């Protein structure tokens, strides 16, 4: 179906009006928000309202209470863990919706894959050897970031994204058939379900004991070492798995419409 010329003209005129309105709305919005910002507490000053007893406890007692050196990790995985549970569910629901929208029926998928596979750079030797060098480094790096989430910057989300990117690189370099050996559709769904279930049950346990004022029996470990921080380390690992799976799954679905 094509648009007729009259309608195109009308559309263009509308677009001009639209641009003007858009500009005005943008200006108005910026003006309101700028006025608000002028009235806000000063940037970078100590003693602003945001710096209160909540922060005092997070930093002053965070290590003692959660065993994590990285206070941000302590906040997202222990103090405000319900938010993070929600965040993981957002990822999960987005993945489910993307699978629902983009997954082709089995027959369509193989046909499309055959049509497209000749354009993939699978036979490229240079690319493969670079990938062979890069992939182990990336793997180690991503695992380092995930496992050290409670000790330094990073954590499950960043590390998981890098891990997912590593899978993607492997997939591009060696082709989907090899990638499928360790991550086909079934194992993918199982991985992600298991990780999420572990996450929910671990968090459910800590919510339940916390809500009923029961002590949690999980040891916090020696601060600063890898095995410390109670549940934070396993949670970071599961979050990493979930994020990596989601990233890789989204790649496959966008690229070919199937895992």
């Amino acid at each position, binding site marked *: 179906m094509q648009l007729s010329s009259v309608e195109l003209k009308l559309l263009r005129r509308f677009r001009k009006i639209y641009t003007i309105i858009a500009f005005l709305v943008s200006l108005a919005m910026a003006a*309101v*928000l700028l*006025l*608000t910002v002028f*009235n*806000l*507490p000063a940037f970078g000053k100590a003693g*602003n*309202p*945001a*710096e*209160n*007893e*909540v*922060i005092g*406890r*997070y930093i002053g007692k965070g290590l003692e*209470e959660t065993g994590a050196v990285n206070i941000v990790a302590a906040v997202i995985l*222990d*103090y*405000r*863990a*319900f*938010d993070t*549970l*929600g*965040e993981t*569910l*957002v990822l*999960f*629901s*987005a993945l*489910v*919706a993307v*699978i*629902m*929208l983009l*997954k082709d*029926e089995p027959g369509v998928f193989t046909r499309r894959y055959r049509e497209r596979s000749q354009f993939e750079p699978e036979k490229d030797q240079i690319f493969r050897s670079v990938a062979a060098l890069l992939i182990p480094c990336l793997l180690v790096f991503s695992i380092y970031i995930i496992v050290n989430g409670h000790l330094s910057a990073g954590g499950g989300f960043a590390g998981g994204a890098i891990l997912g990117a590593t899978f993607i690189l492997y997939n591009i370099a060696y082709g989907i058939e090899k990638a499928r050996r360790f991550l086909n559709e079934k194992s993918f*769904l*199982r991985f*992600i*379900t298991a990780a*999420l*279930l572990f996450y*929910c049950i671990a968090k*459910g346990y*800590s*919510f*339940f*004991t*916390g*809500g*009923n*004022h029961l002590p*949690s029996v999980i040891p916090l470990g020696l601060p600063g070492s890898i095995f410390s921080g109670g549940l934070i380390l396993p949670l970071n690992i599961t979050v990493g798995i979930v994020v990596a799976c989601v990233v890789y799954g989204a790649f496959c679905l966008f690229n070919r419409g199937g895992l």
Partner: protein
Amino acid sequence: MALAHNIPFISIMITILAAVTSLLADKNRAARLCIGALTVVAFLSAILFAYLWQTGTSFTFSMGHFPAPWGNELQAGLFEALMALTFTVVMILSLVAGRERVVADIAPSRQGMYYLLCSLLTCSLLALIYTNDIFTAYVFVEINTLAACGIVAAKDTGETITATIRYLVMSLLGSGLILIAVSLLYAITGHLLMNDLLSSMTELAASGDYAMPCMVIMLFLAIGLAIKSALFPFHTWLPSAHGSATAASSAILSGIVLKGYIILLLKIFYRVFGLSFARDLRVADLLFVFGLLGMIMGSVFAVREKNLKHMLAYSSVAQVGYIFMGIGLSTDIGMVAACFHILAHAITKPLLFLAADGLMDVSGHSKNIFNMQGAARRNILAGIAFTIGALSMIGIPMFSGFVSKFYFVQGSFQNPDKMLVTLIVLALSTVLNAMYYLPVLVTLYLSNDEQSPHRHRQSANSRNYQSVMIIFILLNFILGMFYEPVIKALEQGLLMLGGAH
């Protein structure tokens, strides 16, 4: 600590676990898992409601080992428990009645995920109802958006996908406004937990500091949530999304998803700004005006509509207008009336959508009203259900819609400034409602046209569908006749929401 205090947390966890495990289940098992989990949650919510009704208190439940300002918290009172109960019951009934249509409309490979998204939707609605933390609310609003868009898009036609993208874009605008409002709120108070926000806000209201940011925050929160609950000028996405989705999705979206955001707005009014400060900020007046406009314009659009499902969707715009008008009245009875209307609409609109589905079923799946002549004679139960829903929406006594209108009128008496305009618009809107529901009813009951191709088609609805219809009709009667305890529960619940224990 009573065992019942765990119910909010357990309800949320059950729906999450149902959602996660149904990723591995096939479509039938996913459906059973979802409906089973919802039934458990509904049962638990009923227990919680009974418990709170007996004790007359509200309680908080800390999510984790850290008390109030450090960790997350859930809070439950009568209001929350009643809403959770209603939402889960409506969800179950819509899913059960819409089951056959889902099988017909949605590709088999997608049905499992459809029920998964329904579980997630319930989870996010429950979290929105119970949460005591404004950032958690934002995160669950996003889950709600994704899941709601997902259940619209599950029916894979061009119309639904276009509708979904419009829905998504508008929702994202709303989320953006909510998120920046939450950030501003954090910048001026340093809190995210509603109790602490309330005390900071009370201080700010007394000292007059940050008056301009407070105003902007309230405005952005109200507009953001109004976009998501389709208040009049921001309703453009609603008719296509609710009109094109499969029957169960339309029922769920119109009946409860829109209300989840309104409940969050109520919580912001009561528990973040405090009712008096929120009224001082004058945002309620804005909502009042938009609500009135919505009541009229929604009905005007509906009168012009020939597509039955789109008509019902526009009627939802009008009904959301009623709710916002009640909130905007700034009186206690107005607030109660708005909450009652949330319930009334939550049980009436799904009834209408599901009945419309049954009627379209016997008219060759045409959505056009003119093709449905005599449909109510071919599918008698759906016809009765549609009639009762329509009468309730018009506001005929004995049905739930009448009670809310009655209380809206009472609420307007308390506020002399807004009384006259409220009464006029209520009367006008009732007339308009009648103007589009009555012709439809007449068409539905017209004698079977000799030329009609669907003349001999008989209804073939399952027993599940029929029993759900009967339950919805009974609920409508019960809410319309024995409304006093509900009103009392809402009054007490709103007091609890405002901080009285």
